[in-house]
């Protein structure tokens, strides 16, 4: 089903509900990760990485803003309220993205595992029947190419370095693994998203493609495959979250909450 704009999408409540849910998944993944990236500013191992993480954070937050604007067009609240004043149970990011940064190896590994997933999801979305989403995905994907290159390079560099770097990377991947499956849950509207051509690929197929792309990178970095991937007990895509998200949102919205009616 092709939908040219928000006005058309709003004609069907089923269509709109599924689309809105997917947009929250996309926006919330990007905003959580973008915020976590920004927390490295001044703390990254070298100045190049300070610059890189600031730039990547800006990209991710910018992508989230793009999706928030699409949500606003569909009748959701304005982007600032969506980002800073929404209850935790309405967030749709995978739990993986709300976790604190941990050490450098954890941050690098999380970014790579997520970015490969995001690339697969964005590729699928470029074929979405909802035109504003397909257009944005085509543009966003071109930008994400640079993130992918960056994190792939760091991941293999840490792995191939051996010693403490490799040990920490192995530990990081093991710690990430129970959360990874949450990426491939597409929430409560998965069937409707596919039926309506909003997202023309299911979570299972995304997982298959992801494994196909991640395995060779893990091999190259000398990191053992930690085992089966399953959807975690706490599923962020259904609005279930950990205290990590509440704490992150408290920090992120601290200035906003001082005066929610301020004009920026």
């Amino acid at each position: 089903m092709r939908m040219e704009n928000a006005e058309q999408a709003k004609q069907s409540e089923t269509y709109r509900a599924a689309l809105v849910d997917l947009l929250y998944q996309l926006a919330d993944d990007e905003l959580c990760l973008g915020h976590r990236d920004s927390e490295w500013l001044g703390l990254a191992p070298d100045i190049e990485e300070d610059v890189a993480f600031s730039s990547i954070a800006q990209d991710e937050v910018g992508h989230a803003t793009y999706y928030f604007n699409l949500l606003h067009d569909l009748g959701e609240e304005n982007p600032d309220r969506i980002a800073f004043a929404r209850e935790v149970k309405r967030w749709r990011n995978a739990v993986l993205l709300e976790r604190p940064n941990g050490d450098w190896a954890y941050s690098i590994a999380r970014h790579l595992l997520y970015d490969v997933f995001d690339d697969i999801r964005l590729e699928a979305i470029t074929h979405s029947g909802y035109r504003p989403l397909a257009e944005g995905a085509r543009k966003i994907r071109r930008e994400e190419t640079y993130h992918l290159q960056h994190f792939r390079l760091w991941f293999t560099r840490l792995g191939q370095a051996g010693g403490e770097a490799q040990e920490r990377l192995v530990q990081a991947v093991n710690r990430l693994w129970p959360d990874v499956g949450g990426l491939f849950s597409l929430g409560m509207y998965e069937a409707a998203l596919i039926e309506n051509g909003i997202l023309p690929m299911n979570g299972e197929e995304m997982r298959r493609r992801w494994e196909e792309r991640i395995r060779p990178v893990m091999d190259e970095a000398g990191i053992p495959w930690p085992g089966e991937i399953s959807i975690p007990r706490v599923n962020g895509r259904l609005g279930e979250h950990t205290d990590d998200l509440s704490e992150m949102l408290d920090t992120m919205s601290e200035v906003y909450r001082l005066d929610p009616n301020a004009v920026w």
Partner: protein
Amino acid sequence: MPTTEQTLWSVLDEVKDPEIPSISIVELGMVNRVQLDDGCVRVEMTPTFVGCPAIGMIRQAVQERLAALDEIREVEVVVTMDQPWTTDRITPEGREKLREFGIAPPVDGRSGSLVPDCPYCGADNGEVHNLFGPTACRAIFYCKRCRQPFEGMKPV
């Protein structure tokens, strides 16, 4: 003097990118369409990067400049992604101005290499120093001939 679409384009060519003040938004290829209909202007623009923080400032500058023209009653500036920005959209004049400003213009993204010629000495044997630079659209390279780092636009 009556305002024509051509006048609008030349006024837009005076609006600079606040992050690279030597180059105009027309030379950067950010303007998709300009329509003039009975005193009402509609400008469609697209950001270089989705998260470009300068787009709000640019939009306001466009709004103000065009609204100040003779016989213009209404100005609508729309940000769209229907023709997404790519580095191929920078005009030849734009590429020259980037170089003069000390930012190497982007290489052809299909060439496989990311490294542009050094904007200072012209050498073509530089290397990537950091894929990320001071703004989303720039990266940092290193020239092995004149031995200095330089900024360049990254192909997207």
